[in-house]
């Protein structure tokens, strides 16, 4: 019984991890290529979720909503890049933090203005509703299983894009030496806009997919943003591979910690104490993981530093 629950929680952790990867991949790309720390990445996650919920609500089709989320987040990303972010590349991190913090205020309050303070609800598409029986007799929600597949698929696509395509070569070259590739005739500012919009689209996709599991509301992006920061610090900033490994590590640690710690503490203390203390400790676990990684490898698992 406990073994079944453990497997289910491990799958939940994996699902959580791949969704974090979608967020972390954009952040780490933007930082790696443009050297920009973007606090407003969580707002793009929110934009994706709201676009999906609004379009799905109006048309009744989750798939149209999903397409809308990608389009809206990519468009929001491109517009923000061209109007604000572009002016920040040459600035220090402090200005970047403050400007993107201001962007969060604009996005959050603008969304509250447009959609009100009440959460929207997004239903899981009918084709993906309900559980499936996995080998071993475990019943697991099909939608979450699909999310794991989508996340891993996007990861594979991203590795292919970065490693095997012309755009990927340019992105990697931009990371290594931006003056040189500009001198070689690559339109660097267009490249930056594309990279930013790509990261935004990934965040929007994550927002729409996760939006069906929880309520869609203003401020939903920031907790995910901070976890994505933890992920890329663990993985090493600028590394897509690090983001994937870090995301799965964080997703698993968080989900399994919340499940295992109260049980483990329950063997040495009363059940209610174990529940409370276990929950408090579990909420700190990923930060402890991050601290340990930093002490051992200050540049992250796959960092260059």
């Amino acid at each position, binding site marked *: 019984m406990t073994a079944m629950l453990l497997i289910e929680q491990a799958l939940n952790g994996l699902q959580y991890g791949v969704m974090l990867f979608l967020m972390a991949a954009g952040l780490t790309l933007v930082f790696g290529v443009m050297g920009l720390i973007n606090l407003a990445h969580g707002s793009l996650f929110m934009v994706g979720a709201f676009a999906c919920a609004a379009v799905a609500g109006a048309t009744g089709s989750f798939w149209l909503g999903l397409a809308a989320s990608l389009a809206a987040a990519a468009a929001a990303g491109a517009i923000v890049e061209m109007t604000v972010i572009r002016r920040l590349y040459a600035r220090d991190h402090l200005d970047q933090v403050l400007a993107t913090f201001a962007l969060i205020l604009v996005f*959050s*309050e603008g969304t509250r203005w447009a959609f009100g303070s009440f959460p929207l609800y997004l239903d899981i598409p009918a084709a993906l509703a309900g559980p499936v029986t996995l080998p071993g007799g475990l019943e697991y929600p099909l939608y979450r299983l699909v999310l794991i597949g989508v996340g891993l698929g996007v990861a594979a696509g991203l590795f292919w894009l970065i490693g095997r395509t012309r755009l990927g070569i340019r992105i990697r070259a931009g990371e290594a030496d931006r003056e040189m590739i500009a001198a070689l005739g690559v339109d660097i500012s267009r490249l930056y806009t594309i990279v930013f919009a790509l990261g935004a689209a990934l965040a929007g996709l994550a927002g729409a997919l996760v939006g069906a599991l929880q309520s869609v509301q203003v401020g939903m992006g920031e907790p995910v943003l901070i976890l994505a920061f933890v992920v*890329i*610090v663990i993985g090493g900033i600028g590394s897509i591979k690090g983001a994937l490994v870090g995301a799965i590590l964080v997703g698993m640690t968080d989900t399994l910690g919340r499940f295992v710690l109260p049980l483990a503490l329950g063997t040495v203390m009363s059940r209610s104490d174990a529940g409370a203390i276990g929950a408090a400790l*579990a909420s700190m676990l990923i930060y402890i993981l991050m601290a340990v990684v930093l002490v051992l490898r200050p*540049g992250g698992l796959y960092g260059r530093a």
Partner: protein
Amino acid sequence: MRREPLLNGVLALALLAVPLAAWALDEPFVITLATKVAILALAGAGLNIALGYGGLVSLGHAAFFGIGGYAMAVLAAPVQNFDLLMSWPFEVPGTKSMPLIWLAAMSAGALAALVIGALSLRTAGVYFIMITLAFGQMLYYFAISWPAYGGEDGISIYVRNGFAGLNTLDPIQFFALAYGLLMAVLALTHMMVRARFGLALAGARQNPGRLAALGIRPFSLHLSAFVISGAITALAGALYADLNRFVSPSMLSWQTSGEIMVFVILGGVGRLFGPVAGAALFILLEHWLGGVSDYWKLFLGLILLGIVLFARGGLIGTLAGREDAHD
């Protein structure tokens, strides 16, 4: 030429004159607003030591602000519940005395800054920003899920803590305390910046390599600055909790970190009175825009964006000109 000291004097006097006038006109709300400015400026003054003078971009100072607030509540709650702070191994009563609470808040803030700083300062730049942010979030989630001190609901302290010889429930007297602490901290900061420690810290910000070549380790300087900074922000947290007579995990949230940083940057990074100007402007904007629209944060965001993109150096930088160049 030397416009900054003059501007500092004007700011210090204005922050004193406004509540005094409000007191004469019997407008307690304005006094409370001024008290809020003084306390938030104190939090910003703490961050300014790490951020402005040390060059350490910490996005986790809400941790220290919240620790100060919780130190106040943890010490004062047993008194209002007729309980003991701890009963084992020896009995310790709670306290309602502000100086003791301040001492406890600053010690707790310094200790937390020592641990967080020692780990975070292994890294630099963008890693440092993210790690301080993450440690702040860690304490936030801990405060939410730890049930002993109110969890998500926080704790109310019904009667403001006391200070010998003053009636702290009188707004103008509580303002005087906050203002006095702010001025004391700013005076100490001014002395610190000119002392050997402050000069070495400026050196570590401008050129760590050269400093290391002179035989001074930047790490210990940075850690000391971070600890001092954390202790001052914790003191502000204790005062802020006393102002509201309430603490909740929102004091630890990362928005609070962002706002404390906004005070410093709005006013001017590394300027002595920058946090005062920044906090005053922020509270005025909040008050004024909040009256205009429910969505005032949207306009605040646009104003902030405009300031970052077009008016570098903050208020003090705009009004007093660029800092004098050294050497």
